[in-house]
């Protein structure tokens, strides 16, 4: 519940960023650069250009959350569909899809990112596209593997015997049974994706510079590790808190979906 509260808070902060942040995130004051946290007027200090770190963090939550969640959600949905089809239908469909996955994996993400940025321009939407294009593969492999095992199980056979369509079997019987690992991976990926965005900034391919992102802040702050620890630490902490919240929620969801999870379902006592 705490996790949910944290997450909701972050979302609200992101949405309300323009109204609640104390400064314009891009307003500079070169005379007042690298102020430590708790210094006057700047609760969390300022960065190398004298910009208010708190304001940048608040605005940054937008990009990081959008990138984190949309990239994960989209890749998971697409990957799961491919994985289910590949694993359940099997045969040449499986071979084809999995070879595509092989080829896909081999592709350097950076090349893709550059090409996308070149063709579509910069901006978070394109970062998300790049992340999704590479991200779905993981889910596809995972779900396909689980499906291979699940489709041989008797309850799938029994559902087939009842006349359930392949679609229904995949979605209703197989998917719920591989939801747990998907959830674990997806919630982890939220962190991975946010950090990947940071790595892109590190390698010089980040989001548009006019919008601060946690990843970008972190990448910028790395040079100041000994001199201005807060520059890298604070956005890092923000990412950590988000990842933690998402994962705790994921765990709770996992437990809720696990029929065997040990809790007393007293609400089900018939009157």
């Amino acid at each position: 519940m705490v996790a949910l509260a944290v997450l909701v808070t972050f979302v609200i902060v992101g949405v309300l960023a323009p109204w609640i942040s104390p400064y314009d995130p891009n307003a500079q004051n070169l005379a007042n650069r690298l102020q430590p946290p708790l210094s006057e007027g700047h609760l969390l200090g300022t960065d190398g250009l004298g910009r208010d770190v708190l304001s940048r963090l608040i605005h940054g939550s937008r990009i990081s959350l959008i990138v984190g969640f949309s990239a994960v959600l989209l890749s998971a949905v697409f990957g799961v569909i491919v994985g289910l089809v590949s694993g359940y239908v099997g045969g040449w469909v499986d071979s084809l899809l999995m070879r595509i996955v092989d080829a896909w994996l081999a592709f350097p993400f950076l090349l893709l990112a550059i090409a996308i940025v070149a063709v579509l321009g910069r901006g978070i939407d394109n970062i998300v596209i790049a992340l999704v294009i590479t991200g779905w593969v993981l889910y596809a492999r995972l779900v396909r593997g689980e499906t291979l095992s699940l489709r041989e199980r008797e309850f799938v056979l029994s559902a087939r015997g009842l006349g359930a369509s392949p679609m229904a079997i995949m979605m209703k019987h197989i998917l719920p049974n591989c939801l747990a690992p998907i959830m674990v991976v997806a919630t982890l990926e939220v962190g991975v994706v946010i950090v990947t965005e940071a790595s892109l900034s590190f390698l010089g391919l980040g989001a548009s510079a006019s919008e601060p992102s946690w990843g970008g802040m972190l990448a910028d702050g790395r040079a100041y590790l000994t001199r201005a620890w807060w520059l890298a630490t604070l956005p890092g902490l923000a990412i950590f808190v988000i990842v933690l919240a998402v994962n705790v929620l994921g765990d709770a969801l996992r437990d809720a979906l696990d029929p065997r999870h040990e809790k007393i379902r007293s609400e089900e006592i018939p009157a």
Partner: protein
Amino acid sequence: MTPKLRVQDLVKTFTSGRALLGTAERSVAVDGISFDVTTGSSFGIVGESGSGKSTTARIVASLLDADAGSVQLDGREMLSLGRRDLLAVRRTVQMVFQDPFASLNPRWKVGNLVGEGLRIHHRMSREAHRARVQELLEMCGLPASAATRFPHEFSGGQRQRIGIARALAVEPDVLILDEPVSALDVSIQAQILTLLTRLQSELGLTFLFIAHDLAIVERFCDDVAVMQNGRIVEQGNPVELYRDPQHHYTKTLLGAIPIPDPRRRDNNSPRR
């Protein structure tokens, strides 16, 4: 008149052992069996454990491919059906699995499990659906509250009844029952068998009934086949067959039935 179900020269081989390591060996599970089941009758299969009864059942239910032979339903070959036709067949042929728990999706509540067939084959209002599921559960001696619980919360016999309710939901013409009452106490056994008999006489259902309890088979089935090593070694009307068994195995089988009377322990019984 064509039989409802005609099985001819059915053969199924399995590879067992570790196919991955190349130690696979082939074993014949079903070795050329044939039988006919007429509409509205019950055909019993008894026999040695591992003799291919369940395998036969699965092939007849179109859940497993046969290596050779044919299965005809109302004169129509079933082993080569396309996906679409298969769906139609599934409406008419249903199977109750030998292992009830494994055949129930552990993440589904029993109400949904029982209702699945209904949903697929019988469109009905949500209310009617719920009522029907309730009815099916009660028919099989399960409390209505079962609908909201998960399969692992049930006893072995309860699960077996869930499996039966699930198959009945579809309202099939042909019901394949793989040891459907083995985990039930005799009273509930009787309840279920009475239910089946009633459905048969009301709706003209055809049963393929696999069991180990010869006494039940005698009463429930019109015909019985005795299987051993993938073959039918003897077949006929159960009353007559029991009275005058021909095959050696059938004789052994009949001789091994434990008599429900402690005073009649003979030299043959495990504890004299």
